Every structure is written in C-alpha cells, then in structure tokens.
C-alpha cells in the first residue's frame, strides 16, 4: 500500500500545465501590447503556467485537504479564539451590494455600507465601554500600533515629550513590545507575581514621568483575570500615563465586564477572534481601536459620522494620527462582525463569554491530575498547562504532546507561550464546542500522557499519520528556499 503522503503529494502549480492550455475567461488578443504602448516599457516574457480550470480545481482542492481548519476538527489554539465561523456572515459579506462597492463611491451612494460601519462602531463602543471606535486598523497588531501612535501624538500635544517608555507584563503577546518599538518607545518588561498577575507594587517601581503607556491583556495570556486592575490603572494614571487594553482575550469578558470601566484609555479588538470572523490561514483580520473621550480627536481617518440618519466619512478629525491603511476598513469583516452581533444581541454575547470560560475550566479540571497546571485556580477562557514534570519523568515535551495530538485528529494548543511558563501548552476551547467534543479531546489528551509514561518513543516519533513528519526547520532557515525556480 502506498502511503497517504505519496498519494497526495501535489506538484507545484508551476510544475503543471502546458503553454496555451488556457481558460477562455476573456476575449483572446492576437495583437501584442506594442499596439498600445512603446516597446521600451514592455516585458519580453511572462513566465507563468497555463493550466485548465479542472487542473487548477484539483490542485487547490488537494491543498485544502492538506489543511486543518475549524471546519475539520477541534482547534484549541490558545490566544487565537478558534470558534465556529457561521456561514451566514460570509454570505452577507458576499452580497454584491457590499462585496463590489468601490471605496471611492460617493457617500450618498454608499449609505448601506456606512450604516453597517456606524452600527458596528456604536455596538462595540457600548460593549466595551469606550467613547468611540475606529474601524480602520487591519489587525490586532495594527490596532496596537495605531493606539501607540495616538499616545505619542497626545503627549506631543501636551508637551510631554519625555514620555518614552511602555510598560509590558512578561505575559504579553510579542506584538506589544514590537508595536512599541515601531513608534520609538523603549519597552520595560514587568515580571508577573506568583499568582501570574501584575503586582501593583512592582509596577510602582517602574512607573514615572517617562511612562507613556502601560499595555495590559485582561484576562492575561495565562487566562487569569488581573483582579487588581483598578489599582494598576490608578498608578499609571497618577503618573500621567495611559492604559492600553490588548483585546486578544476579549472573548473572556465580553458582556460581563468592560475595559472602559477598568480605567483603560485605549484598546483594540481582534474581530477575527471574538467576533467569529474566519482566520483564513492567518488573515485577513480586523483590529478596531477603541478610545476614551479624551482621545477621540486623535483617531485615524476616516471616521463614520451620522446626522439625521445620513452617514458620511469624515477625514477632518482635528488631531488625527492620519490613516493607517489604503482604505477605510476591512469592510467585509465589519459586515461579518455586525452579523454576529445581530445574531447574538447583548444577552447572547454575554452568554458567549460565560460558556467560553466554562469550557476552558472543564478541560482544566479534567486534565489537572495528569499534567502540571502551574496556576491552578479557576481560569477564564483559556489556561496554561506545563509539561515540565512530564519532560523530567519521560523526556516528552510540550512539542511532542502537540505533535501527538495532530496524529489523533486535533489541532495542537499554542505551545511555548507565554514565555514565563516552561514547556507551556495554552488551551482555549471557545464556547462553540459541545461537551462531547471536549470529553473526546480530554480522553485523547489523557491517553497521550499515559502513553508518554508507558512508551515515550511512540509520542516522540509523532506525528506518523500526517502527510509529512516533523519538518526540518533548521534546514529551512539555513538554506532558505522561498520560491520555486525553474
């Protein structure tokens, strides 16, 4: 029997096809481009393959079969909120009146699109307790960047140019310090306390007249609620700094608590996480930016305005940081997010976060006797386990557990993040999974740990049932092959 891998190995699209094997999508032209343009601006050849539509269809269908998505199976990837993506949202985004609308269409001919942006902006502002949201940023990191640019413009306007540091807890996503560096801020990393949280006393020591922003994720990436958040915000505000909320984990508190009520001045949301937008293999996302009242004049442009039921794009925001992207928003995702809000309403969204927390705690409770759970208390929407003891006893690491899960038909949790937990596995089931799915996952997880004790070699050799085995990443980095060459 041939291996599945051999059956499915797919040649590159460039290794297929024959010249002239073209599809008749458009009228054929015998004349060359030199009928319209001077020769010195023209290319000599266009070395792309011609493939029939059937061959293209089979090619990408095969590639899809070699790709694991939520639609394929359980996807407990911590911090990424891989919930079900309802198809109604895509159908709405694909309505021709929304899909084909040109961004330079005059406002009066785009009232439906503007109404969608307006309603979403108002809904998000209410849900998260902010004065206003900008839908401009294209992703979470982009929203962070916009927020930090706002902080810089805000302090510049106030003449407080000495504020050049950003405080980031050691549990923070890598995008936080990377975004800070992109606006020329210096990063101060804040060590978490024994409870996995920010200690206000530690914070006091690093806060001062040079503090620009304190960036917090709440619940943090350990899945723990920062319960001294009010005190933290007071410390930062007393020093004249701004509080920034990283909304990556907003699925844990949506409808139950609001960043605006915790003292945050700025925040972003990852609509592709919390609001059920498909991640599409790594994007496109959407990272709306929320601000408190004192920062609305700094929002990126354009901003949607409403007057007597008529909507318009406003490019004249007094102290704007400018636009963050070519056009107004990742609009198709605004449609999806609003459809999701409409499907749930306020009560439904509140229920979403409660069930997300319930599911995470259920898995935690059911595996904590077989693997270390370093912060063993009720978690929020996700929790971290650690394979440190398991590794010492059996040689099996977090990476090996991840690979063994792939062999059993599950996506692996996020591993080796957050950085402060050794051999970390970060598990986030989301609210859309049934108890049966969770129980099946728990059984497999426990079985993998049991096998790690009985026969670690089997786990160390995983995955065996995927199209390829463990990939040589060192070679990929040492001899970069980033494109096909004839």
């Amino acid at each position, binding site marked *: 029997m041939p291996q599945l*891998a051999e059956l499915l*190995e797919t040649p*590159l699209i460039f290794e297929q096809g024959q010249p002239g094997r*073209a*599809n008749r*999508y*458009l009228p054929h032209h015998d004349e060359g481009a030199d009928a*319209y*343009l001077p020769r010195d601006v*023209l*290319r000599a050849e*266009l070395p*792309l393959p011609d493939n029939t539509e059937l061959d*293209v269809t089979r090619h*990408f269908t095969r*590639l899809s079969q070699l*790709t*694991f*998505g939520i*639609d*394929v199976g359980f996807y407990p990837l911590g911090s990424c909120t*891989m919930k079900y993506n309802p198809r*109604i949202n895509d159908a709405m985004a694909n309505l021709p*009146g*929304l899909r084909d609308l*040109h961004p330079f269409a005059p406002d*009066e001919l785009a009232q439906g699109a503007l109404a969608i942006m307006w309603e979403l902006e108002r809904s998000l502002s209410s849900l998260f307790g902010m004065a206003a949201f900008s839908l401009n940023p294209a*992703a979470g*990191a*982009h929203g962070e960047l916009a927020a930090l*640019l706002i902080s810089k413009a805000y302090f510049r306007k106030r003449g407080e140019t000495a504020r050049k540091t950003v405080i980031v807890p050691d549990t923070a996503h890598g995008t936080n*310090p990377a975004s800070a*560096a*992109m606006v*020329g801020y210096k990063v101060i990393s804040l060590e978490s306390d024994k409870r996995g949280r920010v200690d206000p006393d530690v914070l006091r020591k690093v806060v001062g007249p040079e503090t620009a922003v304190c960036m917090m994720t709440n619940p943090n990436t350990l899945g723990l609620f920062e*319960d001294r958040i009010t005190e933290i915000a007071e410390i930062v505000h007393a020093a004249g700094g701004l509080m920034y909320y990283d909304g990556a984990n907003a699925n844990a508190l949506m409808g139950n*608590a609001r960043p605006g009520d*915790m003292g945050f001045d700025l925040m972003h949301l990852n609509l592709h996480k919390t609001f059920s937008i498909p991640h599409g*293999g790594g994007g*496109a996302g959407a990272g709306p930016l929320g601000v408190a009242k004192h920062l609305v004049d700094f929002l990126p442009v354009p901003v949607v305005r409403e007057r007597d039921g008529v909507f318009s794009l406003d490019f004249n925001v007094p102290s704007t940081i400018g*636009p*963050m992207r070519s056009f107004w928003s*990742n*609009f198709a995702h605004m449609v999806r997010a609003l459809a999701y809000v409409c*499907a749930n309403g306020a*009560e439904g*969204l509140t229920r979403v976060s409660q069930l997300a927390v*319930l599911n995470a705690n259920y898995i935690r409770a059911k595996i904590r006797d077989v693997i270390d759970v370093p912060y063993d208390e*009720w978690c929020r929407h996700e929790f971290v386990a650690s394979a440190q003891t398991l590794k010492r006893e059996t040689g099996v690491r977090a990476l090996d557990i*991840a690979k063994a899960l792939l062999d059993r038909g599950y996506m692996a949790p996020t591993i080796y993040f957050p950085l402060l937990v050794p051999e970390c596995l970060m598990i986030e089931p989301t609210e859309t999974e049934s108890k049966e799915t969770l129980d099946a996952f728990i059984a497999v997880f426990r079985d993998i740990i049991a096998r790690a004790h009985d026969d670690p070699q089997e786990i160390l050799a995983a*995955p065996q049932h*995927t199209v*390829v*085995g*463990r*990939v040589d*990443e060192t070679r990929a*980095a040492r001899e970069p092959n*980033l*494109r096909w060459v004839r």
Partner: protein
Amino acid sequence: MLEAIGAKELADLVKVPDDVALRAQLELSPPLSESEIASKFSALAARNDALGYANFLGAGVYRHYVPPVIGALAMRGEFLTAYTPYQAEVSQGYLQAIYEWQTYICLLTGMDLANASVYDGATALAEGAIMAVNATGRQALLVSKAVHPNYRAVLKTYCDGLEVEIDELDYLASGTTDFSNLNERLAAGKYAAVIVQSPNFFGAIDSFPKDAAGAVKIGVVAEPLSLAVLRAPRDWGCDICVGEAQSFGVAAAYGGPHVGFIACTKEHMRRIPGRLVGRTVDNAGRNAYVLTLQAREQHIRRERATSNICTNQAHCALIATMYLAAMGATGLRDCALENLQRAQSARTTMLDVAGVSGRFSGATFNEFVVRVPGRASEALAALQRKHVLGGLDLGRFYPELDDCILTAATELTTQDDIDALQNGLRAVVPTLRKKELAAAR
C-alpha cells in the same frame, strides 16, 4: 460540567471584582434570527446605489472579472477556517499555496523573494520604507508626488512614529516623476530610499532613471495586472517592490480586506517583515513547507523584530494565487490587453467631447487623466446625476489639479458604459464651459 469544575453557578466563574463589574446597560440591537439577518443586510446592501452606475473609478481599487471557480475554491472551509500554519504537518496545503503566492509575486516583479503578504498596498509601502531605513540607518525618504496619495498619507503616519522625514519629488507634464538633480540629491547620503509608483497615481508608466544610485530604490505597484505586459519592477531598477494585489480576484469590498505584498532582492532578505514560507524536507526526506526565518518576527524577537505584523492577509493572497493559476500567462495577458484597449477607447471617446482635454502626455495602462472646464468635482457631480461615476476628482489630493479627473477602464467596462460617459460629458461640459467663461469675465 460545573460540578467537575467545583463551581455552583456559571456566574461564579466569570465574576470580576465589584469595582469593575458591569453596571451599564449595553446598547445593542435585539437578537435576530438568521433569516432576519439576511433581510437586514440585503436591505442595507440595496442602499449602496453605486452598483447601478456606469463606474470609471479606479485609483488603487480595480473592477476585474473573477472566474466563479475562484470563489468556490477559496470558500472551502479547510482554507477559510485555518489559523496561521504554525503546525506544518497539518498545514502543508496552505503552506504550499503561500509558497506558490511568493513565487508568483517574484515571477511578476522579477525580485528574488516575496513575503506571505501584508495588510495592503499602503502598509506594504510603509513596511518597505522601514526596511530601507533599517538597511541604511538614515532617517529620511524621497517620495514621488505621483505615488498614491493614500499610500503617502499612511507612510507619513508610520514615519511620524519613527521620526523619519519625508521629502517629495514633483511630477512632469508627462505625468511621470521629475528626477532632475536626483543623483545630486541622493549623493548627500540623507535619504534611505527613493520611492516611485508605476503605473503611478495618474496612470502614467514611471520608472527610476537608469543611473539612479545612492539610496534604496522602492517601486510601488497598485495595479499588478499591468505586470502582465509591463517590464518587471526589477528591470526598472527596484531593490524593493511593494504593492497591492487586489486586482487578482479580490473584491473591492468598500476598501478591504485587500492584500499587500513586499518583494525584494536577496540582500534585504533578513529585513523583510511578516511571514515567509520555505521549502525543506521532513524527517523522512519528503518535500515539506514550513514558516521560516522566524527570528525576524515579533513572537520570537519582540521589540527587536523587523515589524509588529502578526496577522496578514493570507486568505486574500490565496485568492490571488488561485486567480493567477486559473488565468495563466495567456489569460492574464489577454486581460491586460482588454484593459489597454478599453482604456484607450474610453480616453479617445472622452477627448472627443468638445471642452475635454488631456492633461498628461505619458503612456498609460488602464487609467488616465482628463481635464474639464471648471472644477472636476462639479463635472463629476453632474455626471453622477446621470448615473455615471466618471472617476476621481484629483482636486481632492492635488489642489493644482482641481480641473482633472482620474478615470479607469477595465475589461468590465462596457461600450454602454463608455457611451453613457460620453453622453453625460456632452450634456454637462457646455454648462461648465459657460460657467467658466462667465467667471473669467
């Protein structure tokens, strides 16, 4: 489940300290059933009247024919609902598709390597400029005024953060960039990069002077279909080529999501931002694909990363890859020729109207500038009343061009559209001329 957890009620699990407990009433619309959602959004879509108009808008977003097979393949749930392919063993399909995308961008631009995508054309330019700043250690850029104004505005937003200065190059009567004294300006060593777009915002085919040296040369491509016939950016001098690939099957969608790309020479490989897919082998020696050179990225290097980008536009890049695969060289070339032919026809037809004239003399692809009597905004408003979107008022971005319209025609522009535009102009222009004459007196 609560019992296993040791909780009495669900509310206990999500409890927060009293001082941050929710007190406000959430102001959201009441929940709707799926059929009600469909009605609501259909009604909203119907309020976007622009779709019923003869549409000559381009300016960075182009209407192109998308074969239905693209949508059918792209909407497969495995692709749509996957995350970034961190676990290579169960992501070989998506990783291979991104490797193919990187290759397509290289073949079209002539560059050595390309990344897995960035947000859009404007952010691609900003990130490309940061690459040049890091490569040279210089804190200034020289940018052609014929680069898309939105791209320049975003560049400025990013540069404000990094305290990078921007100087401009003017444009000529041809609509191309004025490079006089370029090498003298570059010789002082002030500029990290010089930035040019082709076809540029006026539609004119631009390029660097042959002997340009002294800064990283960044080329911008906002209409990549043009690359089916035009010289590859590497061949007109680019060290880094950035751009927007919306034209390759990605919907206009009122501005996004679209898909930016960054391609460069080998020299800049370790400075490129975002994901890169590499080809390697697995533990049995089989071909395999994997995310690589991750030491550049934020999740490894944090504040020392080349960029903060994490989420990119993978699914749009996938759509573009499928589009290029389905079109092939033959289809893409035919499409480009349709664009050339229809743009030429639209331009000739417009210039036939007494009072309408050309503005720039340079060669163009599918977009061009015409001049009308009086203000372009008035002409466009009058055309709009006749159900024609004649193009973009250049006065919006260039006060000195407030009598100019930027008009695009693609393979989807019909003869009826062109007739409607001509008839509209015939009706509108005489009134504008009279007004202009009266104002002159």
